[in-house]
């Protein structure tokens, strides 16, 4: 089985497991986002058929929540916290610096598919403000001048 086929098989299993749950659509979409890294239209179609709901309903839910994305994200997802505690301690400057270093606006992915830069809601690590995460690694008490060094680690330069 190819990689893609096994992903679809995994999705069908998730649909099967949740089919009879009340409110199954959310957990199924969450599973799909995890498997594929996004929920494109063909995945939404499979979910709609599997759960017996309309495609418009699936699309409506998938586009409502920020956790679901219709396009694939980069290899490394950089999330800069723009919660209040981080903001008053200068997280916007960190975000601006990242945007400048990567050469992409916030909310987009670099051409080589390596980095996605996004602003995120409060991560709840306010004691470490300003904070960002890169694929789950947490960087706290950040200043803009630390940005190039951190990026270099992921670019494989350091």
């Amino acid at each position, binding site marked *: 089985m190819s990689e893609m086929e096994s992903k679809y098989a995994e999705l069908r299993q998730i649909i099967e497991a949740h089919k009879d749950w009340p409110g199954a659509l959310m957990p199924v979409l969450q599973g799909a986002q995890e498997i594929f890294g996004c929920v494109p239209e063909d995945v939404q179609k499979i979910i709609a058929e599997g759960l017996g709901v309309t495609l418009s309903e699936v699309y409506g839910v998938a586009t*409502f929540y920020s956790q679901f994305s219709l396009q694939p994200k980069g290899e490394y997802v950089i999330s800069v916290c723009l919660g209040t505690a981080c903001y008053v301690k200068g997280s916007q400057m960190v975000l601006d610096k990242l945007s400048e270093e990567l050469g992409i606006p916030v909310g987009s992915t670099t051409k080589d598919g390596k980095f996605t830069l996004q602003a995120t809601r409060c991560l*709840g690590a306010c004691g470490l403000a300003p904070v960002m995460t890169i694929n789950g690694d947490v960087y706290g008490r950040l200043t803009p001048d630390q940005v190039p060094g951190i990026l270099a680690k992921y670019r494989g330069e350091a």
Partner: protein
Amino acid sequence: MDIYRAHVLVCGGTGCSSSGSATLIDRFNEKIAENHLDKEVKVIRTGCFGLCEAGPVVIVYPDGTFYSRVKPEDVDEIVTEHLLKGRKVEHLVYVDHATRQQDAEKKLEDITFYKHQHRIALRNCGVIDPENIDEYLAMDGYRALEKALTQMTREEVIDEILKSGLRGRGGGGFPTGLKWKFTYQSQADQKYVACNADEGDPGAFMDRSILEGDPHAIIEAMAIAGYAIGASQGYIYVRAEYPIAVKRLSIAIDQAREYGLLGKNIFETGFDFDLNIRLGAGAFVCGEETALMHSIEGKRGEPTARPPFPAVKGLFGKPTMLNNVETYANVAQIILHGADWYASMGTEKSKGTKVFALGGKINNTGLVEIPMGTPLRTIIYDIGGGCPNGKKFKAVQTGGPSGGCLPESLLDTPVDYDNLIAAGSMMGSGGMIVMDEDNCMVDIARFYLDFIVDESCGKCAPCRIGTKRMKEILDRIVEGKGEEGDIEKLEQLAQTIKNTALCGLGQTAPNPVLSTLKFFRDEYEAHIKEKRCPAHHCRSLLQYKIDPAKCKGCTACARICPAEAISGTVKQPHVIDVQKCLKCGSCMEKCRFGAISRV
């Protein structure tokens, strides 16, 4: 049970985990085994200690020695000195902000940060291992459930909660007992209990810490609520952004089922109750109760008009009782110790304690739990240690995007639901963000509106369009393009949105603007009329300048400047070309002589 002569408690909350506490635990276990102490010393990963600023935090019992900002390389010393030879490692001990001293003999409760606190909702956080039900049981865990099921009628349970004066800790402040009573009175074949753990207010993280540090307290409280209102099923709606909380909650639910504390015929009383977790997917509006229930139903998290209230028609169309995490965290204690005990704390209309998340420009960031009625000044200065770097306090923001900013002159306000509203803010879920003289209040108002515009679900026009128009005006003002009449336009829009938005999110959205207009109107006027940002924060309205008297001509600024806007010769004062300057601030960060300033 094994008896150990010492316990090493390592904070496993999100803050300390982010600064590497998991590595510390591995290192402790490794070193303890190396020194053959593994039969004598036990390492425990606890929930949040509250003093996030000092993280990662380690406490060694029975001595109660409080080590802060512990690094992996410090572990060896703590093991070989303290645990092996009984000599406390003085230089790693926490420095009390008030006394500026390291005192290895000081117990946790004597540290200034903890001295003013009274922990009820947080009582087990940082004390027990949240992944071990036996530790919760040893702290009187599930005794309140047993008492409710075996010694109290459903009416008596509701009455006890009513009499305690407990009010909703999610922000609304609705009397919890009344909510229970209304749902109890609804007739239906199925009712639900739900827990709102979609903690969305930026800067508030008490619910997360309770779930991570004491998940069984929520399970126990929900089971008591289920008994009281007649529900056999509960749902906990947690933010997906809280992976540690979700994991510990799942473990706790499994353990409770295994012990027969969830499931069929609990305490052999014929009472059935079970719990399921549902994950949020990143939508602030889902903290609103009707939106939250739609989300659990697998729909778009859009609010609907009330009535009907959830107590009548809620989840899947059935009567539903929804409380916030911190509210539940008080329930078992009230049942165990009685309503009178709880009501003896706090103010006339706000009983008990409240947890606040202190953040922003404050020395001791972290979680604090204080009796209602404690003045803001005590929280910010005595517990929080004031603003860092000798900066001047400007405002404290409470209540998140629905709240407001309060100035220095209101710091003696005793904190409770009604006082905060009277002062022009609100309790909210307990976020408390301190701002100093460098923060621009117009920009803060703009920041909150930016958040609301982003998070508005779009269902009603006042919130979807109105907040956007307000934000456009604020964007203009901070860019130096504010016009005469902008303040009046903001006020008019704010009133309209307040009066006509569908749900709480929209109705309170203008509050950050209204409160900053009330207390910091001069800052708005300076931006609009004088094109000046008094805090020197707004980029369009400031200039960087080099003080020739302080400049040593080291050339560091000229070399870092990305726009080549700085010129000068070595050992001579440099100058910034304001036409070329991008206002990135790199030069100011680089200057070692404090010669560059924003004007």
